[in-house]
Each structure stands twice: as C-alpha cells, then as structure tokens.
C-alpha cells in the first residue's frame, strides 16, 4: 500500500474538507430549514448572552468577578468549545455507527478511523456557532478592560489551544466509551455541554471542591480559571501563561482509551 499509491492519495486534511463539502451540499437541499438554522443559531448566543447580562444587572459582581471579567471568561470558553465542536463533534453520532455495525466499513478503508468518524457527520450549526463565538470573543476581549501585553495575548492563544484540545479529548472519550457500552452515555453531556454551560463563570464561583476536581481530574481550570487570574493581573507568576498547554496532555489518555476500544471492537449488526 505504501510508496507510489500513497502520494496519489488525498492528504488527510483535504479528505476531511471533502467530507464536509459533501455534507454541506446535502444540507443545502433543505433551504427553509437552513434559514431557520441560521436564525436559531443567532438566538442561541443571544439568549445565553442576555442571561448573563441580566444576572449582572441585578447582582453587579459574583465572587469578586465583575460583568466584563465574566464576559471575557465566557467568550473564551465558548470559543474553545465551539472550535472543538467544529472539529470533533462527529464523534457525537458514533454510538449509532457502532450499533448499526457501520463502523466495520470504516475499519476496512485504508484511512485513519478517527478521520473518517470525524467526517461522518457535519451540521451547519457548527459554522454558525463558531461565528457567534468569534463575535462574542471579540466583544468580550474589548469589554474586558484587560491591558493587553504580549504575554497576555499569548496566554489567550494557549487557552484556546488547550481548551480546544481538552474538549476534543472529551468528545473522543465519549466515542471510545461506545465500544464498551451503548447505554447511559448521556452522562458524558455533563462534561461537554455542562462545561460550556457552567464554564461561563470562573470555576471558583462553584466552590473549592469543584475547583479541585476541575484541576486534577478533568482539567477545565487549567484553561479557564488559572490563566484568567493571570489575564486579570491577580497573579504575576509567568508559569500561569503555560498552564493551559498542560491541558493538551488530556488527549493522551483519551486517545489511549479510543485505541483500546478499537482493539476490543466486535462488530454488531448486519
């Protein structure tokens, strides 16, 4: 298989975009639905934003964080999540692939299984979400009142990198668990959608124990709370700049679990 044939193959990333192109064309067959998806997407961000806004009009601050500071936290977290969702939400429908046995087809093709699963589904909503996340991110960064130094810009970039990797890892774990059980996976939503929902506030808001969990078990705090403290100038140690990169390591156990699952996979269906 190697050698000459290899060079004729589409590179992985192009294949991925090729998959997406196919999905886009199929989505555009339903025009009315597409239009409503676009409006609906706008409303989603709009609603979450207004909820935050109204809570702060009433309370002004929470655990020492003001509206603009929470807004920065929320917008960074949303962008992290949306980026990960953009790339890795294809794992979401993976349970169906295992149940129906269509994962067999993936395994017999000479391309990476992860890549094919990622390209197996694509909702336009993801593009909408990433756009709204970008708009909110720009707004959040401007409103935050942070004095931007090169170190702080670098921190935000690392936060985005680490956070995206962390959420990708969680989506990958979700898919890997499908190899072991197809029931009860709803629980993983707490770690993905729940993190997006509750991650809009700095994690210290939820108390010390949750912060410990989010530092040691699933490292949300590494991409959210600690670097935020650095951005807001509450801690000065430069080590905080690089903390978010540690979260990338979360991909290692996630991938190992996936590999274990693939090895254990026994086909079902017909």
């Amino acid at each position, binding site marked *: 298989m190697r050698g000459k044939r290899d060079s004729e193959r589409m590179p992985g990333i192009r294949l991925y975009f090729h998959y997406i192109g196919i999905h886009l064309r199929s989505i555009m067959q*339903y025009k009315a*639905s597409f239009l409503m998806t676009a*409006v609906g997407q706008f*409303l989603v961000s709009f609603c979450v934003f*207004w909820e935050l806004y109204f809570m702060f009009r009433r309370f002004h601050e929470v655990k020492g964080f003001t509206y603009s500071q929470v807004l920065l936290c929320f917008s960074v977290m949303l962008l992290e999540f949306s980026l990960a969702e953009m790339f890795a939400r294809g794992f979401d429908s993976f349970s169906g692939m295992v149940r129906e046995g269509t994962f067999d087809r993936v395994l017999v093709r000479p391309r990476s299984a992860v890549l094919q699963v990622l390209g197996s589904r694509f909702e336009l909503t993801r593009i909408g979400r990433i756009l709204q996340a970008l708009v909110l991110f720009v707004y959040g960064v401007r409103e935050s009142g942070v004095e931007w130094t090169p170190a702080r810009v670098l921190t935000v970039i690392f936060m985005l990198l680490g956070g995206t990797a962390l959420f990708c890892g969680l989506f990958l774990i979700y898919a890997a668990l499908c190899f072991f059980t197809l029931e*009860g996976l709803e*629980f993983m939503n*707490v770690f993905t959608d729940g993190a997006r929902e*509750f991650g809009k506030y700095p994690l210290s*808001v939820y108390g010390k124990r949750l912060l410990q969990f989010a530092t040691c078990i699933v490292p949300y705090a590494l991409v959210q709370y600690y670097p935020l403290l650095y951005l807001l100038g509450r801690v000065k140690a430069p080590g905080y700049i690089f903390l978010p990169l540690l979260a990338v390591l979360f991909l290692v156990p996630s991938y190992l679990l996936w590999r274990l699952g693939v090895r254990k996979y026994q086909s079902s269906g017909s």
Partner: protein
Amino acid sequence: MKKYFSFFRLRFVMGLQYRAAAWAGVVTQFVWGVMEILMFRAFYEADPQAFPMSMEATASYIWMQQAFLAFFMVWFMENEIFDAIRSGNVAYELCRPIRIYHMWFARSLANRTSRAVLRCFPILGIAVFLPRPYGLCAPPGWRVFLLYLVSMALGLLVVAAFCMLIYGLTFFTVSPDGLRILFSSAVDFFAGAVIPIPFFPGKLRALMELLPFAAMQNVPLRVYSGDLAGEAAARAIGLQVFWLAVLAAAGEWLFWLGERKALIQGG
C-alpha cells in the same frame, strides 16, 4: 378516545423499559442541579437583597425542574416522528382510521411521562435530604401541592401542544433541524429554563409572564414553593389554560393543512 388511551398506555409501558438510560439521566440531572444551585448560591452570597426569590424557593425550583425535565423541555422531541415525515413512512399513519394529531399528542405525553416517572424519584429522594436552603423544601400546604399538580399537568400539556406545532411545521420544511434549533433556544430563554423568570428585570419579566412559554415550567415550579400564590397563581393557571387551547387549536389547524400538503417521499 379509547384508542388514543390504549396508544398512550402502549407507549408508556415501552418507555419504562429503558432503565439503564434512565439511571444515566438521573446522575446527569442530579449533577446539573447541584451545579445550578452552586451558581445561584454564589449570586446569593454576592447580594442577598437582590435575590427576587428566596434561596429555598430557588432550590426547590431547580430540583423540581431537574426531576421533571422530561415534562418541560421542548427540545426533547421524537426523532421517530421527524424520521417518519422525512422518509415518507408517515403515509402508513395517514392510512389509519385515527386523527394523527391526537395520536402523536398521546405519544408525546406517554414518552414524556414514562421518562419522568423513571427519573424523578431518585432525584426527589436525594434532594429532600439536602441541607436547607439547598434542598427540596416541602410545599407550604396540601392545597398548594394540589394546585401544583394541576399546574404541572397543564404545563406538560402546553409543552406537548407546542411540540405538536413543530411536528406540524415539519410537514412543510421536511428537514426538522432548523425548526428545532430555532424553537428550543428561544423557548429555553423565555420559559425560564436556565434562569427563573423572576430574575429578569421588571418590564421584560411582565412581558415574559404573558407568553405561552411561561405557561410551561415557570408556573408549576413557582406554585410549588409558594413563590406564586393567591390571585397571581390563579391568573397564571388561567393563562396556562388559555395558551393550551390556543396552541392545540393552532396545532390541529396546522396538521389539517399539513396532511393536505404532505409530500410522501420514497417508495
């Protein structure tokens, strides 16, 4: 009427079979409830005076909401129905000597009820024993509790009637994705699914309380804790009845149109 009732029973018993999934749901909902309460606690500590409900009432609101999530969440819709419309299998349903609106209505109620029955007891059971003011409080009296049951049933019917509108619209758009996103985000906001309606500022709050979305979870969950009582509660429940009638009438009309227009695909 009898055939719809037996259809309800059939679906209900079927829904009760998914027990492992229910346990996962219980754990998810419980964690979700704890997180929400921690969040509201932080705001409460920031400024107790600015809190529009008591902490007890807020906690009860959250626990009841999590326990009966399947009753109140509009986004919990049935893929089978959407698939039937998209694939053309709806033709089989149209052949039967039944009103499709009534049958799907019965089916929605059954699915929601069976899900709620499987999930509510463990959540309520634990929430009762949580320390005050973070646990589920007892209602102020048995009359309030009765009123709560009535209002919750009405809320469930309003939610189901609203979902029927979305199913009905799918006859025209064929793909449900856009409709689902459009409605579920807006409804969550206006129904008080994330933040209870009393937390919104005065004028917006007054407007929101009149909308059909407030007739879903807002009324029963606030009646339970006594936050909504007396004349205000009576008016809110009256509004629930009003919206139920309006939504059901609109749904029947939409289905009447849709069945005329339905394009059966596939063969």
